[in-house]
């Protein structure tokens, strides 16, 4: 493992890796899914695969918010940028994600007012400073970022800021896990649960995975040792034939989640009946929209939005990679038509996307060797 010596307690890491070897049944193939894109990035960056036995396969999950957004939503959001007096704001991660008519960055180059913000609160501030403009925030993210959007909307309402809207693309992690478990071409033995999403939702929402589906899940931190310890915990459960929700990331994740965050989300958002995910199709009750009491700040109600459905380029296999059915390098476009410099699919854009992670750490390494 590349960074083992730079890291605190390399000896503990080696011992934990030995423990994994001891616990893994050599006659069995394990498929463990890391749900969160942050974990995917860390796994490649730290070279964790190199310390795991060959029969432990890490399958990358759908937890990269930029990656799961279907292209039509990007075009829908950008259609607002084309309207007069609009300032389109989004996180930096979104800027290079291609829509059918270009990425936000390309819209900016064409003269549209497109700006990066680092916090939804800054988009609100921009609206306050530019009362003659209409500021729209293109919101993405799982439960980690949804509470911040909710609080910003609550502030907009309290302050009576009328020239601020949110184009809401917030999604929720549980229905995505359910869709993966329901998918006939998926066989997952256990889950490495997301760290920061769980800070908000806690561990209880995962209980059905163990109780009803019989799969272990361990909420994990992001350091190499965290992830290796989580794998030890999963293997112990599998060995004993148990299925429990465990929390390896206790120093940050409370079992009950963050009450203030859940309350803010409940105040502002309601579940959409269904929402389209890239490559996974429509998943019921898997995304959030603004409640009627926030209609004034809802870009989908304040602007006329085309409601586009754009299919991904035919040759791109983002969906299969997102579901973990294909490895990034098995996609026909990987590393040729689709690279981090010229991305075709969003998985190649975000550092949390499995294609970008694989390209940056495995593909380049192979190219140098």
């Amino acid at each position, binding site marked *: 493992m590349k960074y083992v010596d730079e890291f605190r307690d390399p000896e503990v890491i080696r011992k934990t890796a030995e423990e994994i070897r001891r616990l893994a049944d050599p006659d069995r193939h394990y498929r463990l899914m890391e749900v969160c894109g942050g974990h995917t990035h860390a796994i490649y960056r730290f070279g964790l695969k190199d310390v795991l036995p060959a029969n432990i396969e890490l399958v990358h999950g759908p937890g990269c918010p930029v990656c799961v957004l279907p292209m039509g939503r990007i075009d829908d959001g950008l259609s607002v940028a084309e309207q007069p007096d609009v300032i389109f704001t989004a996180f930096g991660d979104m800027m290079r994600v291609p829509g059918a008519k270009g990425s936000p960055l390309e819209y900016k180059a064409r003269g549209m007012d497109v700006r990066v913000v*680092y916090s939804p*609160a*800054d988009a609100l501030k921009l609206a306050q400073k530019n009362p003659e403009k209409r500021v729209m925030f293109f919101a993405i993210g799982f439960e980690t*970022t949804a*509470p911040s959007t909710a609080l910003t909307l609550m502030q907009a309402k309290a302050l009576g800021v009328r020239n601020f809207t949110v184009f809401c693309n917030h999604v929720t992690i549980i229905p995505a896990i359910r869709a993966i478990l329901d998918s006939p071409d998926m066989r997952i033995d256990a889950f490495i649960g997301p760290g*920061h999403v769980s800070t908000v939702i806690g561990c209880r929402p995962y209980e059905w995975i163990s109780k009803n589906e019989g799969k272990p899940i361990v909420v994990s931190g992001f*350091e190499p040792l965290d992830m290796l310890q989580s794998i030890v915990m999963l293997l112990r459960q599998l060995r004993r034939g148990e299925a429990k929700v465990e929390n390896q990331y206790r120093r*940050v994740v409370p079992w009950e989640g*963050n009450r*203030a965050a859940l309350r803010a989300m409940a105040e502002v958002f309601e579940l959409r009946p269904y929402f389209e995910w890239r490559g996974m199709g429509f998943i019921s009750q898997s995304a959030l929209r603004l409640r009627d009491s926030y209609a004034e700040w809802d870009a989908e109600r304040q602007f006329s939005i085309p409601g586009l459905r754009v299919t991904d380029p035919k040759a791109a296999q983002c969906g299969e990679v997102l579901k973990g059915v294909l490895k990034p390098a098995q996609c026909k476009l990987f590393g040729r038509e689709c690279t981090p410099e010229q991305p075709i699919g969003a998985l190649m854009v975000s550092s949390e996307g499995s294609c970008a992670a694989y390209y940056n750490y495995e593909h380049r390494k192979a190219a140098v060797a």
Partner: protein
Amino acid sequence: MCLAIPGKIVELTPESHHNAVVDVAGVRRRVDLSLLEFEAPQPGDWVLIHVGFALSKISEEDALDQMRTLRLLGEEQAAMEEVRGYGLGEAAADERARAPEALGPSQSPPAKRGAA
């Protein structure tokens, strides 16, 4: 966007109970504390920040570990860029205007890189 950035609360902002000035590797920005309503954050506490909002209170040891993790992940620069961007990059100027003795020019961007 999913970066969790560790910072230390320097002072609570009296005019707005949900705001605080937080220090991240020498860069000071206003961060929203509303999500810690039930945890009574105080100056000196360490927090994990997501998109300008503190989402959890952590120990100092875990904060330092988190900074090291960001560095190992190659995300430290992105994290510092994000923090400098909070308040559209203007919070430092606000702070200086309000309390000139509290913040020297060394804290305003570009701050020294914390890679040492």
